[in-house]
């Protein structure tokens, strides 16, 4: 079985790198900071997409760039599971994402052990 490949979309580069280090044991990790970068990085080889709802750190609770990534991914790669995450308590956004086809919604700070089991489960 090929090694799973996941794409993580978040606007904080240090956070992307930390997640990359944490997940490197179980999968290959691509990273993107915006919708445009996500469009370029997403492919048939992607096993899972992990997206922060807010892609503009200066507008927490307002910017929902991650929702656009979710919509685009579901329109072009409907079979790839998408997990959304957010540091902001935004239940409305969480419900919207689940209605748009997201598989799960994670609240930051993320528990790495939980994330790893989720990745393993979703890429089976």
């Amino acid at each position, binding site marked *: 079985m090929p090694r799973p490949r996941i794409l993580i979309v978040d606007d904080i580069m240090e*956070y992307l790198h*930390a997640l990359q*280090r*944490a997940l490197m044991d179980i999968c290959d990790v691509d990273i993107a900071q915006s919708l445009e970068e996500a469009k370029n990085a997403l492919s048939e080889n992607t096993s899972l997409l992990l997206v922060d709802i807010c892609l503009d*750190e200066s*507008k*927490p609770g307002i910017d929902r760039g991650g929702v656009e990534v979710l919509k685009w991914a579901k329109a072009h790669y409907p079979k790839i599971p998408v997990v959304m995450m957010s*540091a902001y308590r935004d239940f409305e956004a969480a419900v919207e994402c689940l209605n748009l086809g997201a598989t799960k919604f994670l609240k930051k*700070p993320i528990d790495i*052990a939980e994330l790893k089991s989720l990745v393993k489960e979703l890429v089976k």
Partner: protein
Amino acid sequence: MRIIIVITRMMASRGGGDDEFVKLWGGKPDGDYAIWSFNDGQDILYVYHGCWQRFDNDWQRAEQKTVKELCEQLSRDIQQDLGQYIGQSEVGVLVHPPMGIEQELIQSISKGGLGFKPSFVIATGGHAGVEEVNQKLSDISSVLRNQGPLGLNFGELWNFFCKAPSTPAEDLKRRLSILKHRIAHLFLPIYIDLQGLIETGFREDYWDEVVDAYKDGKAKQALEEARKLVYEGEEKRDTVEKIVKEARMESHPVWNQVQSLLPKNRGLPNDVEQILQDLGCQNKREVVKQKCRDRNNPFHQWFTELDKALDNLREALPKKGNAAT
């Protein structure tokens, strides 16, 4: 002696439908101010006719005036009308500021931008969360029109405004949410890396990558940046301390908790600062490993407590129109 200064909608058109001086206070369109005295002239209510024509003859140019220019104009006019009393009085200001510069104008007036340090400065107008202040102004103007100053108790008004939050409650909560989010994001990478290290038993190649990420004191820089987001300093930026002061919550226990978890001039509790420093040092693997054996390590505890304290502070911010207790 006490003076309450009410500055009506600053970008209204003189005599137009949005002119609060005329519509709310019953002033004449060409008037510049209205004044009422209370308690044998010991207290004064002064209503300044705010309208863009007072700041420039051209509406667009008036709208582009800087906060400093607006304050200078207000200060000149107020000094002209009240100069003899201002120096010997406690003064409170209620102002309906132009859109987009509300915070800046409030802060400037609070710091003496009108030539005196007010006892309170309150934003009025169509902002969410100031309905009670707007309602109070509406009640005052109604009583003045029908009964004159004798119908009002100035002391009660003064106390009401002294206790009202200076900026809309919803706005304070939103601003604190943004700061909390920024502070959290400074430490989230460290939070993830420590979990990853613990899970792999501080595996050497993992440690090398983490050291590389935090070399040159990057983790400590995150801490310094967090302090700048919490405490007021040289830089002109929003801070948690600023919000706490605006909400008059300087002695609130939740603010005390935030200060003890992230002190301004002292180290962090439980050696957390040392852990942050050691993350960027190649030869400190064993030291950090000893301190962070499991999920319940000092950094994890500190980070989650700080996050919770900021959440609690946000929740404790005053509700619409009421001061914090």
